[in-house]
């Protein structure tokens, strides 16, 4: 690994230098143009990957942003004589602005799934094409750019265009790589796997998607700008054809859309393959071959080529993330009693109500939870327990009432802000980020909670050790069994260092020894000062853990108090077992 990295560090700048010097070696213009085309597709495909590859919101409208760039330059440069170089950033800005406007419309609609996004972006392409060809921007005749003066950065025009294309491709790759390795990238990948959960874990999904969309489109706009002077004559039909989204999507899938280098690898392969196929004037045949390739690739290697290549290279010596944990202070254990029921109210629910259409899941629940307390939420199925958890974590909006955390109203805040206030939750059926490793799953939650005194990496290691999953740190969640998945769900919530922890049936489905292990763990967590609300059917665990029990029935709070007394309350017995038993 180290060896590869070292050789890469030397080889990469050397290769780049070679590519930059190429136009000055007297090489024929034909080759420079050819290389430009490779760079162009690499830049465009990479830019598509920044939004669509990372988040899984597939855009079929990349032609719209590319076209916005083409026509910005064509109009400014071809009609008004603005210097070309000046129009490149303007083209990028116009495309980015368009993306932000569309994003604000589309991403705000929560119910709008990925495929709607794909079709909507495709629609935007048609709208934009119609507007441009119907107005004086194009007027249906096309715009000539052949007389535009280009900056003389290389001996020939082709050389200059090639260098600009190379610069753009390199920039796109660098940006994409930096994004992937940053918090932004981490959040985008989490959005891909499960957007709702990402929000609950503290990822500001809307903002991240907008940023990725804008960056992606800006690069596409700049690519359009350069492409406009390369082709010299732009028309609506060529610019907004489905060729652009078709190729960009194919290239990204072929190379691997979740890797920064994937789209560029795919772009190079396709461009080269196509030039081999299309020897002469059979453009139509080339298109058909590319289409056939798309079908075969998607059916046979849905993950793309890049991940496979990289796995081959890094087989040796990739050290597992979870090792090196031997001596870690797990939890500050205060004595068990010290933490209990300090009297200060941390969570207050006031007349919380929720209706789904005509069904009233919660009909005004008042509940106060004290700091450091363990409160069990019990009740028959459908009594509103999980709904209440979902309201506190911000998953659902309240129909009426309000929820306060430490005196500040949190109801109505988006889930990621509630998470940053110190609320963490688990899901009854684990909802893990399936394409991120166990370690990355926990690190994301540590990083986005905003509570860390330690680095997210340290926190992730510590909490994986706490639940005993350090060995599995580099696996993907689908490789875990149910017990491990539940505990990983647990570790994710803990890594956020929450003040209030919401556990939704963590024990259900576990074997008796596993339940004991989990009960011990929950005690330890509370000993660290965390307030816990847990939903549970397993009475043994409820009685063993809870300081107080809240019983919900048909959306109302039926009883609240110490475990044993509450469970003997006739109303509670009748709610659970039916009226005759209570008598």
């Amino acid at each position, binding site marked *: 690994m180290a060896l590869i990295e070292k050789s890469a560090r030397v080889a990469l700048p050397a290769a780049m230098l070679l590519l930059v010097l190429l136009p000055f070696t007297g090489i024929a213009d034909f080759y420079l143009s050819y290389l430009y085309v490779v760079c162009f597709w690499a830049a465009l495909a990479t830019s598509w990957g920044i939004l669509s590859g990372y988040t899984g919101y597939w855009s079929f409208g990349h032609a719209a942003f590319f076209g916005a760039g083409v026509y910005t330059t064509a109009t400014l440069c071809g009609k008004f004589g603005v210097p070309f170089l000046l129009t490149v950033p303007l083209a990028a800005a116009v495309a980015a602005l368009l993306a932000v406007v569309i994003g604000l419309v589309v991403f705000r609609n929560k119910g709008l799934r990925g495929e709607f996004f794909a079709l909507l972006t495709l629609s935007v392409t048609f*709208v934009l094409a*119609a507007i441009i060809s119907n107005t004086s921007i194009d007027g249906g005749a096309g715009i000539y750019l052949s007389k535009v003066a280009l900056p003389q950065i290389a001996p020939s025009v082709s050389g200059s265009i090639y260098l600009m294309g190379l610069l753009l491709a390199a920039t796109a790759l660098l940006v994409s790589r930096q994004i992937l390795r940053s918090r932004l990238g981490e959040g985008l990948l989490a959005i891909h796997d499960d957007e709702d959960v990402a929000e609950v874990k503290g990822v500001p999904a809307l903002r991240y998607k907008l940023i990725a969309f804008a960056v992606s489109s800006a690069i596409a706009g700049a690519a359009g700008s350069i492409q406009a002077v390369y082709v010299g004559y732009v028309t609506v039909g060529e610019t907004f*054809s489905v060729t652009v989204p078709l190729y960009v999507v194919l290239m990204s899938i072929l190379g691997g859309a979740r890797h920064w280098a994937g789209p560029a690898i795919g772009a190079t392969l396709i461009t080269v393959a196509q030039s081999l196929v299309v020897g002469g004037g059979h453009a*139509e045949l080339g*298109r058909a071959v590319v*289409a056939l390739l798309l*079908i075969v690739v*998607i*059916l046979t290697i849905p993950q793309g080529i890049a991940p496979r290549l990289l796995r081959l290279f890094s087989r040796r010596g990739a050290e597992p993330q979870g090792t090196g944990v031997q001596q870690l202070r797990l939890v500050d254990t205060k004595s068990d009693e010290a933490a209990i029921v300090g009297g200060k109210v941390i969570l207050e629910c006031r007349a919380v109500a929720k209706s789904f259409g005509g069904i009233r899941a919660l009909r005004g629940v008042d509940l106060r939870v004290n700091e450091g307390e363990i409160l069990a939420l019990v009740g028959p199925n459908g009594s509103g327990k999980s709904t209440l958890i979902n309201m506190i974590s911000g998953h659902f909006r309240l129909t009426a009432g309000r929820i306060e955390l430490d005196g500040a109203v949190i109801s109505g805040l988006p889930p990621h802000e509630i998470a940053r206030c110190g609320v963490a939750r688990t899901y009854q059926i684990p909802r893990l980020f399936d394409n991120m490793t166990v370690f990355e799953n926990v690190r994301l939650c540590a990083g986005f909670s905003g509570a860390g005194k330690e680095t997210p990496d340290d926190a992730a290691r510590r909490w994986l050790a706490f639940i005993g999953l350090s060995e599995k740190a580099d696996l993907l969640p689908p490789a875990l069994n149910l017990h491990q998945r539940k505990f990983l769900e647990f570790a994710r919530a803990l890594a956020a260092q929450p003040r209030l922890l919401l556990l939704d049936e963590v024990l259900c489905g576990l074997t008796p020894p596993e339940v004991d292990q989990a009960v011990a763990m929950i005690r330890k967590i509370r000993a660290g000062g965390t307030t816990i609300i847990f939903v549970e059917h397993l009475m043994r665990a409820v009685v063993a853990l809870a300081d107080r029990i809240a019983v919900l029935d048909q959306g109302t709070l039926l009883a609240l108090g110490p475990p044993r007394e509450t469970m003997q309350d006739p109303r509670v017995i009748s709610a659970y077992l039916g009226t005759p038993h209570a008598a």
Partner: protein
Amino acid sequence: MSFTLLAQSTIGGVLLGGIYGLLALGLSLSWGLLRLVNLSHFALAFLAAYVGYGLGTRFGWPIWMSGLAILPAFFLIGIALHAVFVRFKVGEFASMLVTFGLTVLIESFIQWVWSADYLKYETGYTQDTLRLGSLYIPLLELVAFGFAVALALGAWLGLNRTMLGKALRAAAQDGPVAAAFGINAAGLSYLLAGLCAASAGVAGVFIALTSTLAPSQIEAWIGVIFAVVIIGGLANPLGALAAGVLVGVSEAVTMALVNPAWAPLVAFSILIALLLWKPRWL
């Protein structure tokens, strides 16, 4: 702006909406019930249109005969396509990409056989119209509209009033559970896929009769029809027809009132407005 012009363009819009609804029907059902977004639905419709044109102009087949040949052929194409999806466990997204590729393949094929030029299928009855006072109703488009209504109603009744349709909807919501209750989900999905492709065939026959054919036209329909499908609500046959009529009328009225070139904008403007408004059925 006369009343006659407005009424005439409204009639034109309603009839155009029929074709939209006809095309949207199969797409909406396969998306909603099979979770497959079949972009090649349009290409299939155009393939049917070209085949109908070819049979008519080269062999002199009357259109009803071509139609009778096209229906079973397309039913089988639909089944074959679905077999590929099932074999490779194609999901919603992958289905879009695969059928996107298929669209380009079919388009290339059409271009290879029939060239990229515009073709018009002329029959003795192409120009027949009904007269209603000062208004004209093109007969063929009226028949197409009749078919659209009949198919939409049939699909709606089939889905909501028969055991087979209920089984289909159950299988769409949760395949394994439906299977546990004895529903042959796999068999049903093949049947539906075949029917959807056959509906593309029907739409294609009417496209051949009523509009000018060119391979590049395939792409022109994609945007509008998807807008119709989404506005109508997935797996809702009557909704698709109603949305088709809504879009058709608004387009036709825009053409008459403003400028024909702006018509493509209308469907997408309605779609975007709906996305902002977020009605419950969306």
